[in-house]
Each structure stands twice: as C-alpha cells, then as structure tokens.
C-alpha cells in the first residue's frame, strides 16, 4: 500500500497533521489499553473486592414460630398464616363520612358493632388494628369491599389441634406470638426463632437477585420442639383422671406418667382441662400446669422414701418388726392414728398396710438429719429442672427446725409439700434401682422440616439409695397392690404393679389447721414390677364420697397402665384371670408350690416366648372375654409357662410372707 505515492495535492501541512493525528490516536489507544491493563490486571483484586462488596448481601429469610410435636411427631401446636385487618389512617378531609360508610359495610362482615369499627377507623394514629386473625371468608369479604385505607396483613396464628389434650403442658401464646405459658413459654426463644440470613446477590437497586432459586424463599418455619409427651397416653391419662374426678366430685386432679427407663415425661394431665385455643375464655387458674407449679402434702406415699432412708442407712432391717400401738398412740405430744389398728408389723407390712404409727416411729428412729438427706436426695425441696415455666420447689423446711412431731408426721408425708412431678421422679428413682435422673419434657429440637437439630437425654446424675435398698423397696411396693394391700385396685390385668397409696389431710389456708373434711387422694407407683416401664402418679384433690388414695387414685393408675402398657409394646407377664378361675385353680395345683413369686418372675420370660405368643399375650388384656380362646390357641410351650405365672400370682402373698417372716405371729 505504501508503494503508492502521496497525491500531488497533499500539502506538507496535511502530511504533518496526518502524522500528528496518527501519533495522537495511537497514543490515545495506548493510554486506554494501559489504563485498562492497570484496572484489570494490576488492580484487579481491589476491584473484585469492591464488586463483591456491593454485590453480595445477606437476605433474611423470615421465620415464623416453630411447631410443637409429641414424641411421635403428632402436631400439638403450629402456626398458620391468617390475615389481620388494619387501617393506616384516613385523610382528615374524608374522615367522618368515609369512615362511617366503611364501618357500615365492615360491620356485618366482621360481626362487630359499627360504632366500635368507626371509632377505630377514625383513629388519628398511623396504624390501628381493626380486627386481627380474620377467617378466610372474612378476609375475602374485606378484600372485596375495596375500602380505602383498609389493609390486610398476614399474621401467624397459633393452633392447637388436640385442643385440651395436654393444654397446660403446651401452654399458649399471646396475640403477638410470644409464649405465655407451658412449653410455648419455656421454649419461646427457640420456637420464636429469628430470620435466617442467606447469602444472596443483589442488583444496583439493592434488590435481591434470585438467580439459582426461581423465587424468593417462603417464610421458613422456625425450630420446633419435640416433646417427650405421648399424645395418646396424655389423652388416656386425661380420660382416666376425668372419670375419677367426676365420680368423686373432686376439686382438681393431676396425673404424671413417666417413662421409668428414660425419665421422659409421657403425660401430665391436669383436671380441669384447658383448651389453649381459647386462653381468654378460660379461668387463668386453669393455665397452670399444676403438676409442677403446685405442691401438696403427699401423705402415706412418702413412707416409701422414709423406708428407703431407714433401710439404706441400715437403721432397720426388712425383718424388723415394729409395734403399731393398736392404731392409736401419742408421739411427741401428739396423737397419731392408723386407719386400721395393727399390732406388730414387719417393714414390708408397714408399707403394705400403710401404718402411720409405724412410719412415725421409724422416722423418729432414723432422725431428722438422715431423713432430710434422703428427702433432698430424692429431689424433694428442689427444682426438678424440667423445662416448664413456674416450677416450684415444694416445701421442705430445713431439718434443723423440725420439731419431733414434724419429723414424725413427715414420716407419713404430712408437713411437707411436693409436686406431682417430684413424687413421680422420686418413685422413678426407686424403680430404676436407686439412681436419680432428672425428668425431661423435651426430646428433640427439630427444624422446620422435622429434622433433628438437638437431642435431650436425661442422664443419671446421682445415686440416692443402693441397688439392694431399691430392690427391697420395690418388693414392698409390689405388696401394696396385692391382696390385703391398700392399693389392690391399682393392678392392671396381666401386669404386675407396685405402688403406694396416700391419703393426706389438707391444710386449710385460712385456719392454718388441717381441715377435717378435705383430703388429697394419691397413688404413685410403677409397672411392670420386674422391669419398670411406666411410673405413674395420680393425685386427686378434695374428693367427695371417698377419700382414700387406694380407692380413688389407684383405679386411675390401673386404667392408664392397662391401656398404655400394651400400647407401648410391653407384653403382659401375668395371665388375665380368664373366664373361669376354676380352670386356673386346677392348672396351678399340680405344679403345686414354692419358690416363685410375682416380683421374682424372670422379666425375660415374655422375651423368650415367640413373637406369636407375645402377640397373643399382649392382646389378652385388651380382649378379656376372649382371653380363654386366645390361651387355648397358644402352643404347648406357652401353656407350660402360663401356669407358672398363674401360680405366681395366686400364691404370692402367702409365699412372700413365709419367706420374709411369719405374719401370723404378729396378728
């Protein structure tokens, strides 16, 4: 190209200018390339940081309150978005006429008086709720009104699908979603949750970009709580309690059911019931979970702990006998009575027949300090630490201030205050062989998808009594439900049970004296005896028509245990009485004799039988009328086994007494 000569008409000026422009343009391009190089290669990292700084942001995914589940994942409480109506204030010009018109149209939709609505509409404030938590129909109708100044907003409302079942445990939330009672309160921070920050890109208008996900994330459910409560057992406990409470026209009643092995609370029933869906329509008195917030005098059930202390400290031995003063005696300047007069009783018999005089004598023998140590050891007088609001310690006065009479009556559970939960937990300690583990109400923290985030376990934290003592006490408690004991009505068909009845006098808050006509009927115990699964405490306050724990509370225990044990897959270890006791008698006679007792029956027995048999056994209590047929169908092997168990049950009281010393001599 350069070979062409420049044209003649091109002047030197042209050529020099052209050259100059060439240089300038090339210089300019080089400057641009240099500047680009500087920005893009040399300072690259600086600009990348700047770009990221303005590009990256965190998006707060809104969260709504988490759900509460029972141990099997049944929903006990959950949040549902519901629309609420508010007004952002009217312009002052159209104030009166507009708001009146609107109120006239809103009135029928909301079902509220027009004046009240008009007043709210006319409010000068920027934000006024008109009505919160509308039904879907109402929200739709309001939308169709197209009223100026009316706004709908999503709010989350709490629903309790099981209504009053476990109402006091679950508690409820206030209008603004803050937990006010129960688990809703104690786990409020976890349930309430907070919005979750998510790394996100945003554009120049500071809006988040949803490039990988098609839409902004929906509000996420916050962490939920999976309780140890089993809704079925809770329901069962409530049904049985209600039956008893209504039969005896009691003032109130409580039941705590606990898993003996894990210290997990399976049920906490409070009568009268409370529906957390309608907290305002219930008396505030009903909101409390009285199994932890109220203490009562446990009465004779406390003899178990006295006996534990006495045996564990070797202050008495099992065979020791104690004279029970024929039902009436004066101790430490006060008169103490037994319901039935007894003479000499062995230690198991003091428990079995529940002798107050015997217990008082033992208490005086053990002494305040030792006894108090065991009382505290079992967890009385201190918080159990269960994650429920309003728990009380109960009332255990310092032992140094106990007068002898206090010590004596504390021996049979007066002058001391415990909660139903403390009582259950303490019995659980005995059922567990003497090691205490604190009761728990929450099993897991789960995320919105139900995936476990955190797990709670109750671990054994201290040994209260030795294994030997615990075994002895368990044997004594087993006697209570057997013939002649005070709690025979507690034994569920097919299962062995151990427990202790209690009938406590109630201190009149006004006179500060024990009221003559007010009692607390208590039964606490565990089942099955061999391998405790359930610990159940039943407390019925101020019953009428009967007063004894063995009469009022024990059947509640039986009612719960009889249904809950098969439900939990615990196979019966004892045969049901069956349709014809005579047959049983015949069967038991040939094998004839000694050595076996109910509580000593190997717990593995049911485990050894085939699955078919255990299924047959399991179904037995449920289908009592058909039990004979079921037994007839079982294999030879199980037939061989069944009589043993039958024999065990029927002969037990006698055998036991023979082994442990002659009861006849006492009588």
């Amino acid at each position, binding site marked *: *190209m350069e070979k*062409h000569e*420049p*044209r003649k*008409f*091109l*002047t030197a*000026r*042209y050529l020099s*200018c*052209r050259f100059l*422009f*060439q240089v300038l*343009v*090339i210089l*300019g*391009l080089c*400057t*641009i*390339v240099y*500047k*680009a*190089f500087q*920005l*893009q*290669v040399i*300072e*690259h990292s*600086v*600009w*990348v940081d*700047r*770009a990221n700084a*303005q*590009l990256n942001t965190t998006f707060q995914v809104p969260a709504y309150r988490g759900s509460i589940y029972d141990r099997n994942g049944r929903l006990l409480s959950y949040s549902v978005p519901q629309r609420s109506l508010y007004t952002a204030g009217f312009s002052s010009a159209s104030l009166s006429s507009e708001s009146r018109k609107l109120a006239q149209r809103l009135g029928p939709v909301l079902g509220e008086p027009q004046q009240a609505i008009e007043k709210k509409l006319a409010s000068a404030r920027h934000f006024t709720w008109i009505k919160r938590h509308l039904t879907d129909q109402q929200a739709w109708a309001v939308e169709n009104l197209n009223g100026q100044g009316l706004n709908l907003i999503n709010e989350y409302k709490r629903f309790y699908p099981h209504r009053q079942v476990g109402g006091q445990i679950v508690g409820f939330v206030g209008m603004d979603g803050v937990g006010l009672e129960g688990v809703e309160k104690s786990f409020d921070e976890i349930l309430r949750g907070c919005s979750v920050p998510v790394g996100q*890109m945003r*554009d*120049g*208008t500071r809006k988040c*970009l949803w490039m990988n996900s098609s839409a902004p994330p929906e509000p996420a459910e916050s962490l939920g709580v999976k309780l140890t409560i089993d809704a079925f057992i809770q329901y069962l406990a409530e049904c049985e309690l209600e039956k008893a409470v209504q039969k005896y026209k009691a003032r109130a009643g409580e039941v705590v059911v606990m898993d003996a092995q894990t210290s997990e609370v399976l049920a906490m029933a409070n009568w009268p019931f409370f529906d957390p869906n309608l907290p305002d329509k219930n008396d505030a008195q009903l909101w409390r979970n009285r199994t932890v917030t109220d203490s009562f005098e446990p009465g004779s059930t406390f003899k178990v702990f006295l006996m534990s202390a006495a045996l564990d400290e070797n202050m008495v031995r099992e065979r020791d006998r104690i004279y029970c003063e024929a039902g009436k005696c004066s101790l430490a300047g006060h008169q103490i009575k037994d319901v039935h007069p007894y003479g000499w009783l062995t230690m198991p018999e003091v428990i079995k027949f529940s002798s107050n005089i015997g217990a008082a004598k033992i208490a005086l023998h053990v002494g305040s300090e030792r006894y108090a140590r065991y009382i505290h050891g079992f967890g009385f007088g201190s918080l159990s630490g269960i994650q429920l609001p309003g728990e009380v310690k109960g009332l255990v006065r310092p032992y140094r201030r106990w007068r002898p009479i206090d010590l004596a009556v504390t021996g049979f559970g007066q002058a001391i205050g415990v909660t139903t939960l403390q009582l259950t937990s303490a019995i659980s300690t005995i059922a567990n062989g003497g090691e205490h583990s604190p009761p728990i109400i929450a099993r897991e923290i789960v995320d919105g998808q139900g995936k476990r985030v955190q797990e709670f376990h109750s671990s054994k934290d201290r040994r209260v009594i030795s294994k030997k003592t615990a075994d002895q006490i368990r044997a004594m408690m087993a006697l209570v439900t057997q013939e002649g004991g005070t709690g025979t009505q507690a034994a569920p068909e097919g299962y062995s049970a151990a427990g202790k009845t209690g009938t406590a006098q109630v201190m009149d808050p006004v006179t500060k004296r024990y009221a003559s006509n007010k009692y607390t009927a208590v039964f606490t115990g565990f089942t099955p005896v061999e391998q405790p699964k359930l610990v159940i405490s039943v407390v019925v306050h101020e019953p009428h028509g009967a007063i004894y724990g063995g009469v009022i509370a024990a059947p509640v225990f039986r009612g719960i245990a009889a249904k809950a044990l098969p439900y939990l897959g615990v196979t019966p270890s004892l045969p049901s009485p069956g349709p014809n006791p005579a047959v049983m008698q015949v069967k038991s006679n040939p094998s004839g004799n000694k050595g076996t007792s109910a509580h000593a029956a190997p717990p593995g027995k049911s485990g050894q039988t085939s699955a078919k048999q255990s299924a047959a056994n399991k179904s037995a209590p449920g289908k009592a009328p058909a039990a004979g047929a079921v037994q007839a169908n079982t294999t030879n092997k199980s037939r061989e086994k069944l009589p043993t168990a039958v024999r065990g049950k029927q002969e037990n009281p006698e055998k036991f007494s023979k082994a442990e010393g002659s009861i006849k001599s006492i009588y």
Partner: protein
Amino acid sequence: MNRPATDAPSALMNPREGEKQGIAWKPLSLELQLWIEVSLLIAFGLIMIYSASSIAALKKFSDPNYYMKRQLLCIALGLPIILVISRTPYRIYKEYAGTILVATLMVLAFVLIPGVGAEINNARRWFRIGSFLIQPGEYAKVVWVVFLSYSLVRKQDRIKQSRISFWPHMVLCGAISLLLLKEPDFGTTVMVVMLTAIMLAVAGVPCRNFFYLLPVGVLGVYRFVYLVPYRRERITAFLNPWIDPLDSGYQLIQAWIAVGSGGFLGKGLGAGTQKLFYLPESYTDFIMAVIGEELGFVGIFTTCILFFFLFRTGLQISKQAPDLLGSLMALGLTMLLLLQALLNMGVVLGLVPTKGMPLPFISYGGSAFTANCLAVGLLMSIARGSEKRMDNNV
C-alpha cells in the same frame, strides 16, 4: 505427504515468499477492509448490546431481546445507507453542501422548540417518530465535516487569508455549538469544535488564528462548564470520584468496578453483574465497561485494535483519495469516528471527564449508528473513487 503439498500453504501464508516466487500479494481493497472492520464492530456491538441490555429490557419491556431487536432494525437501516452512499460519488454533494448545512442548522433549531423536540432527562435533543427517537446532532457532525471539507477546498487558494478561511467557519461552528449547547449536548459540541480545529488545521489555515480563539475557548469553558453545576460536578467527579461515590462519582466508580473486576479474561460473555442496574447506561455510553467486565482486558484490547485498524484504513483512504476534497473529508470522518471512540473509552476508564458520547457501531442508539454508517459510506465512496482512479492509471 509429498513436498509440494506442504510447501503450498506456507507460500500462501508468507507474502514475502510469495513475492519471491512471483505470486502477487494483492492487498484487500480499502473498501473491503472497511467493510470487514465495520462489520466486525457492528457484530461485536450487537452481541454486547444483547448482553448488556437484556436485563434492563426484561425489566422495562418484559422482553430481554427488546434493545437487540431495535438495534437489528438500525443495522437493517444502516447497511443500505452504507451501500447507497458508498456507491454515490462524494463529489455530487458539492452543490448542496451549503443547503444541507443550513437545513441542519434549522433542524437543530427546530429540535429546541418545546413540543417539537422530545425532552428526556432535561435535554431536548430528539425528534420522536413512533417509538424511535432521532437525534439530529449526530447527523450534524457528519454534515459539518462534509461541509467543512467542501468549503475548505473551495477556499484552498485563499487559505492563508483568515478572513475567508477561518472566521466564517468559526462563526458557523459557533452557531452549531450554541444550538447544541442549548439542547444541551455537550459531547456533540466538543466533537464539532474538535473537528473544526482538525479540519482547519489540515486544510492549512494559519496556526496563529487558533491562538486568537484561546480566550474564546477559555470563556466558553467558563460559561458552559464552570457555570453549569452538573458539568462542574462531572469535572470534580472525574478528578476524584470518591468524594461523592453515590452521586456524581457513582457512574465512574461503577465503570471502574466493572472493568477492574473483569480481570484479564473477563467474567465471561453475559456473566457480568454490573449491568444489573449498577452501571447506568450500560448498553449505550458505558457499553465499554460491560465489554471490560465480561471479556476482560482481552476484550478492551481487541476493541482498541479494531478501532486502530479502522483508523489506519481511514487514513489510507484519505491519503489515496483522488482529490483534496476526498482527502480532507476522509480524514475528517476518520477522526470523527476515532475521536468518538477514544473519548467514549476515555470516559469509561476515567481518563476524560464524563460526557454523553456513544461508542461508534457498538453502543445502542439508532441516530448515532446511522450517522456513523453515513460516515463509513462516504469513506467507502472516497475509497471507490481512488480505486477507480488507480484502475484507470493502470
């Protein structure tokens, strides 16, 4: 493989060897060179417009292809313009040059009339025809170059006489500038002034005349830059954008972030993030920032190389033009394209204070595109003239 087969490609690839062996190394004709360069720029621009504008188009028109479609329409309009103009002898405008200039001045005046010209962002630069906006200022630049070259050729014999060769042009330049400043369109004004200086200098107007203008220039800068708050702000923002990074310095900082974060190879075509409403005018005046971000240093360098080739071809055309008219016009038009490119890239990279100036053939914008097509068509016409002459000579 035998030897001749391997020899053949190397012979083709090495022109010197080809010469040695007697094979003629025929360079591409200037017109074809221009076609290739402009086509590359247009194609590249179309891709970058699509990348830079799709988000904005989606947001504004619910159609990510909106701006690309319109640009395609402009290309469909621009290519025939190139074809027609390049096949029209450039000398035929001689008689009409004055008329065209007067018409242009009138159009520039018309656009200032409220109701006739469309006002956007406090500027009245456009005629609205349907959904299209026509910016006469863009065409005025081309017209001005064409007129100046005719006028200067006509006055070539009296070029040393300032009264004839200098002042009349200065008056006209002043008139155009004032009309443009009234819109206001500072970028085009700067271009017109610079082109005037270039054309006059090349044509041989005595240099001392330019010194007379120094006070006028200073006064003009004072009046139209220093006294206009937003222009003064642009200067301060150019000097240090970090003083006000969210307002006056925002555009430049965002451009720097775009270019700087692109790195050597860029984030990848379409993968840039600054076009997500961080970078204002991402598909028009600041498309270079998107190129820098998505294609990196390589992209900017390639763009510069393309413009350099365009510049080289333009200067060749100017040099080989059949007459002084073609030579002057070709130089002016080449400088028009290149100055715009340089200023635009300079603005994006913070080397020049911000002013509205599109990147020729790459930025979105119909008027600028068709005006540039006009310029390229004229250049081709001049190139064709010289080819014809050479053919005649041969």
